[in-house]
């Protein structure tokens, strides 16, 4: 699916696609650089805190690599423009925070239904509503999963550092092309604004779009290949495809019947679920002998690691399961960990969204302690430690 492109080929001598080297940048900037390196050529967004550094970097960088930046009139338009650009044949991305994410939901559903590859970044802040524009939150995790109407599957990745923000953005583009689905980067204000060392490699793989293998007269735009993903004919390529958000058959034509609908919705889910093991990324830290496992993601998982270290200092055998892929939820990883510990602790900056998934995946075989905060600040390692001690009490 991918071929290697280096800084010196493909785009000519003036290529600035890959800023190879060691940088000091924040998570937002790292996401922008990850996108440019992955071959993103179109970015549409509306300004919102704490996302603005992504848009600002893209506005600077895209003209340098032959791409187009446009600041749209709102997030509804930004998401629609990204889908349009993807059908125009380029890799496209948008970025926002909670309020804008809400506005994008309808068109995220259009991208799911029309199988449009694109990347959507949500730098989460305190919510609901306008909430805490400048302060951290992780309250959009369930919205990422179910925010658009209808039943669908989506891929969401959550970085815990600017370096990982860069790496996951590159991977997000590859996944979006591979599965023809919007891929969400669910980061947060702290990772977005945190400055750290980011190493950009000499080579970054550029994912190729799957193209039709038959002439236009034989081509069915929604006839999937063996892996349930159909090749994509973009505008102007001579295939004259019809693309609709209505339920459609393999020709792409609207078909208003329950059987076609069921078949389509199942395929849209199955094309991702069948291959989820390829991209269910997580990290197990100090879990080998652990009696308590802390499950967390994004900035909270970084604090959770501090809590686990405090517990170890006190002689408590604690470990961390850090989720990198949050959707589809890593059921198996959570279940396996749950089977060998006495209790689970979930740390997140909301009042228990991923905790529900942990409970479901672990099938209630061990007690679960939530370490929750509604937003506005990150946890302290001591709060995580308290959660670890609390869950051990449940067993006594």
């Amino acid at each position, binding site marked *: 699916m991918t071929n290697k492109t280096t800084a010196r080929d493909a785009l000519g001598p*003036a290529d600035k696609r890959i800023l190879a080297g060691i940088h000091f940048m924040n998570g937002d900037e790292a996401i922008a650089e990850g996108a440019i390196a992955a071959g993103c*050529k*179109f970015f*549409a967004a509306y300004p919102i805190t704490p996302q603005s550094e992504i848009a600002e970097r893209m506005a600077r960088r895209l*003209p*340098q690599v*032959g791409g*187009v930046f*446009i600041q*749209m*009139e*709102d997030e*509804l*338009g*930004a998401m*629609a*423009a*990204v*889908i*349009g*650009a*993807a*059908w*125009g*044949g*380029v890799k*496209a991305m948008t970025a926002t925070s909670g309020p804008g994410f809400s506005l994008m939901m*309808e*068109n995220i559903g*259009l991208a799911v239904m029309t199988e449009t590859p694109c990347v959507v970044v949500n730098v989460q802040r305190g919510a609901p509503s306008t909430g805490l524009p400048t302060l951290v939150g992780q309250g959009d995790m369930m919205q990422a999963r179910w925010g658009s109407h209808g039943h669908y599957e989506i891929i969401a990745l959550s970085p815990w550092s600017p370096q990982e923000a860069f790496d996951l953005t590159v991977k997000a583009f590859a996944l979006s092309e591979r599965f023809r689905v919007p891929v969400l980067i669910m980061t947060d204000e702290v990772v977005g604004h945190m400055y750290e060392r980011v190493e950009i490699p000499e080579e970054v793989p550029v994912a190729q779009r799957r193209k039709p293998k038959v002439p236009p007269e034989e081509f069915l735009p929604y006839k999937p290949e063996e892996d349930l993903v159909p090749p994509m004919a*973009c*505008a*102007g*390529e*001579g*295939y*004259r*495809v*019809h*693309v*609709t*958000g*209505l339920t459609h058959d393999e*020709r792409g*034509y*609207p078909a208003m019947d329950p059987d076609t609908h069921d078949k389509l919705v199942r395929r849209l889910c199955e094309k991702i679920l069948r291959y989820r093991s390829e991209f269910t990324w997580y990290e197990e830290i100090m879990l080998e002998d652990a009696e308590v496992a802390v499950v967390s993601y994004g900035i909270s998982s970084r604090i959770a690691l501090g809590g686990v270290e405090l517990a170890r200092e006190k002689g408590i055998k604690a470990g961390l399961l850090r989720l990198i892929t949050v959707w589809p939820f890593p059921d198996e990883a959570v279940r396996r960990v749950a089977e060998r510990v006495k209790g689970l602790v979930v740390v997140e900056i909301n009042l228990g969204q991923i905790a529900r998934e942990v409970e479901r995946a672990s099938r209630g075989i061990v007690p679960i302690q939530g370490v929750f905060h509604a937003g506005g600040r990150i946890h302290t390692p001591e709060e995580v430690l308290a959660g670890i001690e609390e869950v051990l009490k449940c067993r006594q």
Partner: protein
Amino acid sequence: MPAVKPKSKPRPEVLPGVRHPMEKYLRTDRLPHIWCSGCGLGIALSSFLYAIEELGIDPNKVAVVSGIGCSGRFAGYVKMDSYHTTHGRAIPFAVGLKLANPDLNVVVFSGDGDLFAIGGNHFIHAARRNADITVLCVNNFNYGMTGGQLGPTTPPEARTTTSPYGNFEHPFNLVYLAASAGATYVARWTTLHARRLKESIKEALQHPGFNFIEIISPCPTNFGRRNRLRDALDEMRYYADKAVIQHGVDPAGAEVVPGKEFIVGKFVDVRKPTYLELYRKKTEELAARFG
């Protein structure tokens, strides 16, 4: 009880064996269309297809984008790259599509509710930026698909299902709105003026920048029926009686008021740099400065 017959879709054949000359641009396997008899959308569609034909534009290089509603079904019938998007978002989709592939002639075909109520913000901003797209708005003064509700162009006192006692809202004057937002080509026709409409679409397709044509169309099923224009022909007679062809008129005074004469024709035809032209100019300046 008689067995339920499966829904059959017979191909209408007015003259056996005779095909419409524009069939080559249509997805004939999707016919018959869903539009009501007497609706003006067919005339708008054929005017567009004749315009493509007469200009000799490669249909592989035309993309049609629609929103939601009766006019939203446009994209489904043309045999070109065609996109039936979400309600109100045809314009931003088209903006992204055009910027990603500037070789395409991108045409938005949608209705008054889609473009000016739920999608109004995108319209004025695409016009302001002079995005290089052509927007054809079929204005039937109501939401036809959902059963005939009040829309942003519904005239004063008109009856709709959500203005049962007569509309008391002020409607938009679309050509004035387009002109003041910065559109560089603005025209209005009715579906009675099919040839003039076709010529106007030809001009718009060749005109770089944000082009807007309002196409006033009958909706006998939902609008006409409730407003003493029960028969589509009544509405066509009304257009013949009241439409005054005049070019270069100030669009500010070109309102459509029931019972009164209204102006059709070309209001604006100017040239100014498009968004992409300006973007490219900036990029070239950047390259010249930094290499």
